[in-house]
């Protein structure tokens, strides 16, 4: 397969037997999953579960000790540039330059993704209009609220027309209303644009709208499937109860 060709039958993201260790600590332990194209999947796990490690491997920032990652059928290790061109990423840590204006930040991203001239201007307008932030174009990011910054980061992640959207604890630091709005926006974007979304979070209420949930705990997948299926399989009354039961059970299993 060439770098630019994508077969619609292939999964958006395919992860096989991923292992990552930091010294004696195993952050990811033979993690495997496959996300259908256009699906909205939540990666749910408590703090320290390995979500950020997984996200950093998917974005090429870290290398796995072993295992394979493919995006739209392209191997990350063999075609890292082509894979990165397909990803839109919202990092856990804010990544806007506080001392530049919103437009300068977006122009920087556009340049990194090869957008110039009229395409760059259109991409910047598109990112700003996504959340109606056109008036903030010349505002320094430092002056914006955390919620507005997150919206700009989400708009920025979509500027280069990615097929995959990765969000790592994207609602961190946001109030409940802003969190709910952001989740709703991403869900709508996934439906409208056919984006494959992987949303990493530890907040159960954010994943109710997901097509599927992958529960990660201490580097291992302890459950996966549609939210209703996970609730049914654990015999819990809600997804939150199921999550608590699964992560507590995994802890006991390991302690034993």
């Amino acid at each position, binding site marked *: 397969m060439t770098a*630019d*060709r*994508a077969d619609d039958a292939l999964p958006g993201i395919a992860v096989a037997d991923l292992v990552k260790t*930091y010294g004696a*600590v195993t*952050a990811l332990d033979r993690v495997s999953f496959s996300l259908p*194209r*256009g699906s909205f999947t939540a990666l749910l796990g408590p703090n*320290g*579960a*390995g979500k*950020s*490690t997984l996200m*950093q491997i998917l*974005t*090429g*920032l*870290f*290398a796995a000790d072993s295992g394979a990652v493919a995006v*739209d059928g392209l191997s990350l290790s063999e075609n890292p*540039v*082509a894979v*990165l*061109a*397909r*990803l839109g*990423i919202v*990092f856990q*840590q*804010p*990544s*806007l*330059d*506080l*001392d*530049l204006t919103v437009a*300068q930040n977006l*122009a*920087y*991203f*556009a*340049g*990194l*993704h*090869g*957008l*110039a001239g009229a*395409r760059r201007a259109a991409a910047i307008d598109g990112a700003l209009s996504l959340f109606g932030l056109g008036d903030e174009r010349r505002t320094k990011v430092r002056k914006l609220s955390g919620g507005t910054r997150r919206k700009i980061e989400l708009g920025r992640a979509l500027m280069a*027309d*990615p*097929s995959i959207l990765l969000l790592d604890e994207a609602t961190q630091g946001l109030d409940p209303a802003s969190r709910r709005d952001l989740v709703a926006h991403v869900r709508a974007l996934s439906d409208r*644009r*056919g*984006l494959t979304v992987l949303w990493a979070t530890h907040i159960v209420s954010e994943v109710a709208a997901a097509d599927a949930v992958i529960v990660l705990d201490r*580097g291992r997948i302890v459950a996966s499937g549609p939210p209703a299926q996970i609730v049914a399989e654990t015999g819990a009354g809600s997804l939150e109860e199921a999550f608590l039961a699964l992560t507590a059970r995994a802890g006991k299993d390991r302690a034993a």
Partner: protein
Amino acid sequence: MSTVADAAARPGRVRHAMAALGAITTRETLRFVNQTGRLVSAVVRPSLWLVVFAAGFHDVLGVSVTPPYQSYVTYDVYILPGLIGMVLLFQGMQSSLALVFDREVGTLRLLLTAPLPRAWLLFCKLVAGTVLAVLQVYAFLAVAWAFDVEMPPAGALTVLPALVLGGLCLSAIGLVLSVHIKRLENFAGTMNFVIFPAFFFSTALYPLWRIRESGASWIAWAAQANPFTHVVEMVRFALYGQAAWGNIGAVLAFAAIAFAVAVRGYDPQRGVLGRAPRDET
């Protein structure tokens, strides 16, 4: 969703690479312009050396006829290339500091996940730092000119290639440091072990023969092994329209080695960046 047609609409590789170079250089320039104190200190620091230090030793430490000089030169003339080197050195370290800062605040991730070869992205950072360094050198040269420091009229032009090469070399060394400096608060301490030895164990303040004559042979040896010495000598000859090929070769070699080490350091497969602390899991 991206399709084959979308892929065809994507920019060509060269155009993409140039767009990234423009974006990175623009960002670094905007950040520099926004930081007035940095701009002022970049000119004031070498100017103070020129006005206070060189003026004090003006008649004491003159240099006899030594290439590229055709006659006896006063100390302020001798020290000028060293102070130009100081501007390049500080900017190189500032670029390193900017990378450590970017890593701490999260903006480095944006750079490293751009769909371009990582070596090119790091080279763009070198070029951006060098552009800023060259601009600062010319601001300093204007001050030197205002203080009547003698320099061939064409020197400001003939020195440009040396400034670019020297800026790239010292920025590449800064890039290597940025791989290993994990936190911003460690930066000042590390710099004390880089900037001051690099400057003092070089020919910036005294010619090599004078260091040797004074019996400090180990300092002379250290100065010869110091990349900063070669940058300073390359600049010194370039100011007089001459190419010091030995120094140019050494600067190229140091730049290439430092860049290769930095690229390796930023490679998640092999470098230290792939080893995250436990709190990042």
